[in-house]
């Protein structure tokens, strides 16, 4: 499942937490899979959590469009292959992340 990073201020009810939300000491505040409510969002804001990872809401068509757009951006920045081994490695792993969703 594609994860999107949202700043806490832009969260809305109905989104699902993708990765556990932890405080600065590592304690889990919200587990993966938690469904956000107004109350939970307010608590996150109060605790000063700056951003969370939520499950993407896009349908399959939207996902395909986004994936192609991201890949095109990578191709444009890197060329079809990286100019150096480091750039090629970075390009490859970024493409891998996009494909993994």
């Amino acid at each position: 499942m594609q994860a999107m990073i949202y700043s806490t201020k832009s969260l809305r009810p109905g989104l699902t937490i993708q990765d556990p939300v932890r405080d600065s000491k590592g304690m889990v505040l919200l587990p993966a899979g938690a469904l956000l409510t107004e109350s939970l969002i307010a608590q996150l804001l109060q605790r000063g959590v700056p951003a969370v990872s939520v499950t993407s809401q896009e349908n399959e068509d939207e996902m395909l469009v986004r994936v192609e757009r991201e890949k095109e951006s990578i191709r444009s920045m890197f060329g079809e292959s990286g100019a150096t081994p480091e750039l090629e490695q970075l390009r490859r792993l970024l493409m891998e992340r996009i494909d993994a969703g």
Partner: protein
Amino acid sequence: MPVEGLTADALAQHVKSIPTLPTVLTELSRRMEDPKTSSDDLAQVILQDQAISSKVLKLVNSPFYGYSGRINTINQGIVILGFNAVKNLVLSTSVLEAFKGARSGEAFRMDHLWVHSASVAGAAKLLAERAGGADPEEAFVAGLLHDIGKILLWISEPKLLTGCIAASKTHRIPLSDVERKVIGFGDNELAAVLAEKWKFPTSLKDALRWRIQPEFAGANTPLAACIHCANILCMAMGASPVQPAVLPIPETKAWELLGLHHDDRLRNILAELPLRIESARAFVLTRY
């Protein structure tokens, strides 16, 4: 052809409006060199500047440090977070304040620069934590300040910087290469001149000066490598509103020094970066 007779030092000398940093910073640096200095002594120095001390107190209580609302005095902040963490806060707050009046233009936006700088700060801190060799707090500050040379260039020679940015996009050459070809030096060298003028610690000066070629930073190569690689990673991930026409080429030694040549290390860092960047932006941009 480089602009004849223009060096980073000469340009900095001619800029009439280089902001000065609060004297509290110089005094803080001086006191920290004395091993007998106590947290009380340092707190008294910081308290001489009301504006800086109230900002620092607000920042040490931010969620970024995990002590929200529990640090009531500067002295307490120094005891809990340490001398260097508080000094870095004073330093970065001072620089952001110093450049507060700089105006944006079509080719160069200050808000975009600070978003990018905050992103690099978060990424650099993560790299320092994972790789070791550099202090993560110092990496954060160095990342935040890595583009101050660009700001100085924008203030003093906006048409020159605008031209370099346009040439970089048109010819798909990294901006730092265009600056060296056209002006004769890169904005990283200007950053080093500023760092010298503002009496930054040597480690920070070296990181800013050598962020393009970290292997020349001597003992501070790990810190310079963190900034170098963080900058590239932020741009590559599209995390920066300042998107280059072409990515700068990572220096092999810096890449390997941070262990990024191992797929697993790089993969894990790429996975963690988005959240770290967002957190850094939230921390930095509340005070911009």
